[in-house]
């Protein structure tokens, strides 16, 4: 992958929070512990993991909504095909950061909470354009209408309020708002988890169409691997703040190497009773370890069915690219 094809490079991102523990002292919650990945132009990277793995925190850290400790998140502002122009989002000062926000936007999980209930749909979609002073008032109105059509909403409803729309339609409003500034990267934070099952594929379809039409790159965050696999080109699996495996989506399903990925895949139900009855489930024992404890050894070693005593409990495995485009952090697969 040449540098020019990449649109986002994240290296060694760490996010720590100081929290007060029950005894009254304070301890460090290591939400994200050294995450690195690359996002190619026009592709979707899926970020998968269970609750507490740090995927949402990673997204928020990239967007500077939470402070990060170390690491870089470099965004390529150049047009595709032109020489790269990288800026580190985590180091930008206030004005530059605001300007760069036009290139990287976010879609949220809860379609009910992510829209201001007291603003009309037109105002919500127009707001980014107003903030960055794009075009005259009538230009903006026209742009809002065309955005609404693009996401599949009837522009006649421009004066309606969010509570008058269904969940799927509200999510479309959120997508239109994210598209308003014509960004290069859109971070989708669980965009279909809160929607009814029958309309999830509508929204996923829309996202895919927009990607093809506009050349967008997505970071698709979800806990449902079935959804992530279908929309992503590559999938990164996270566990307790680190990426444990990263590979193209078909590879992740057909050839998962990390024991956690294998357990995760075996736990996901498939709507096919024959397959279900024949599956060998890897059922993990116990719960997720606390993210505040010191990291000694592999985080997964406490629950791993294939743990190597001594090695796995003593050293932290690094994320190494093992085969073609398949990275893994596990001592079982050291090349």
């Amino acid at each position, binding site marked *: 992958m040449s540098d020019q094809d990449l649109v986002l490079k994240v290296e060694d991102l760490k996010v720590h929070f100081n929290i007060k523990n029950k005894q009254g002292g304070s301890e460090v919650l290591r939400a994200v512990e050294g995450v690195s990945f690359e996002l190619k132009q026009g592709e979707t990277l899926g970020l998968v993991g269970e609750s507490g793995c740090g995927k949402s925190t990673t997204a928020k850290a990239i967007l500077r909504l939470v402070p990060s400790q170390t690491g870089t998140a470099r965004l390529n502002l150049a047009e595709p095909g032109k020489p790269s122009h990288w800026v580190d989002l985590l180091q930008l000062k206030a004005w530059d950061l605001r300007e760069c926000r036009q290139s990287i936007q976010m879609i949220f999980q809860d379609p009910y909470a992510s829209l201001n209930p007291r603003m009309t749909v037109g105002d919500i979609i127009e707001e980014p354009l107003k903030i960055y002073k794009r075009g005259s008032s009538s230009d903006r109105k026209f742009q809002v209408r065309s955005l609404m059509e693009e996401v599949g909403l009837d522009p006649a409803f421009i004066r309606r309020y969010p509570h008058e729309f269904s969940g799927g339609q509200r999510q479309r409003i959120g997508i239109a708002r994210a598209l308003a500034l014509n960004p290069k990267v859109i971070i989708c934070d669980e965009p279909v988890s809160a929607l009814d099952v029958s309309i999830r*594929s509508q929204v996923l379809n829309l996202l895919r169409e927009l990607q093809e039409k506009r050349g967008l790159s997505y970071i698709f965050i979800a806990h449902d691997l079935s959804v992530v696999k279908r929309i992503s080109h590559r999938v990164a699996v996270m566990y307790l703040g680190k990426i444990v495996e990263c590979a193209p989506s078909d590879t992740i399903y057909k050839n998962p190497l990390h024991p956690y990925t294998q357990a995760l895949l075996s736990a996901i139900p498939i709507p096919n009773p024959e397959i279900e009855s024949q599956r060998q489930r890897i059922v993990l024992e116990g719960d997720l370890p606390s993210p505040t404890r010191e990291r000694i050894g592999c985080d997964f070693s406490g629950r791993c069915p294939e743990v190597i005593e001594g090695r796995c409990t003593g050293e932290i495995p690094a994320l190494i690219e093992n085969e073609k485009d398949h990275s893994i952090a596990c001592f079982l697969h050291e090349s």
Partner: protein
Amino acid sequence: MALLEVQNLKTHFHTQDGLVRAVDGVSLNVEAGKTVGIVGESGSGKSVTNMTILGLVPTPPGIIDADAILFEGQDLRSLSKEQLRKLRGNRIAMVFQDPMTSLNPFLTIEDQLTEPLLIHKGQNMDQARQRVLQLLKEVGIPDPQSRLKDYPHQFSGGMRQRVMMAMALVCEPSLLICDEPTTALDVTIQAQILELLKRIQKEHGTTIIFITHDLGVAAGFCDEIYVMYAGRIVEHAQTDELFKTPLHPYTASLLKSVPRLDQEASEAFVTIQGSPPDLTALPAGCSFQPRCDHAISRCETERPTLEEREGNHSRQCSCFVDLRGEVKS
């Protein structure tokens, strides 16, 4: 004899926006020892059905009407509030979706778990405690002795759901109703809980009604499935039958559109057009008609009735299209 038999149940609510037909003519037949799944999206009426059976729906604003609601041969509607209360938690138990809100945050789990025993079985505290410890071990809570005095917030999500199950099982009910018990949990924890439920069913022979919107979970867990849409049952079949040959367009479309792990990443998404129904303004004919690919003119005006097909597979649809070839098995 069926353990639970419901015939033509209707639950309507008068609201500011009109009459909401939450449940509109639902009939269930649950045999003892089986796992029955009720699958539907939000607004399909699956939760309200169960609340009605248990008598938990307040009658203003609700209006309940049924031909029969029989549990172990007894008509639940003819029971007084006192008698219903004796049943709940004792012979019929329920596990809810959100363990955070269904456990009392102010009571220790010891208090909450021994409560059903003290009320229904008349045991004293020591006997109850013994039983509770045994049950906690059975549901897989490590070191239950030390955790008896803990409060719900001191448990993780998965552990809390196990405590809920222990509470449901404490009086050895013959019927266990689970309302989306794993929806709020992570996938690996969900697998643990489902394994636990399977084990419990095998060991105690409990009948389970499992309500969910996740077809995958239903495929792996249930023996037979009722599919609900807009307050009506649109299809009912044994699980294998249902997934192999769905006869109702809604079931077929749902199976096609749900993203599945075993599909190729590059496949196009199949969508169901339209949006979930507005329960205050249902169409005059079939409620699925606005979104159905196979709708004919009859579907707009006539409401289809539940008809049985071969192999105990019934569906509620007016069309004659053979959907056999449409779904990949």
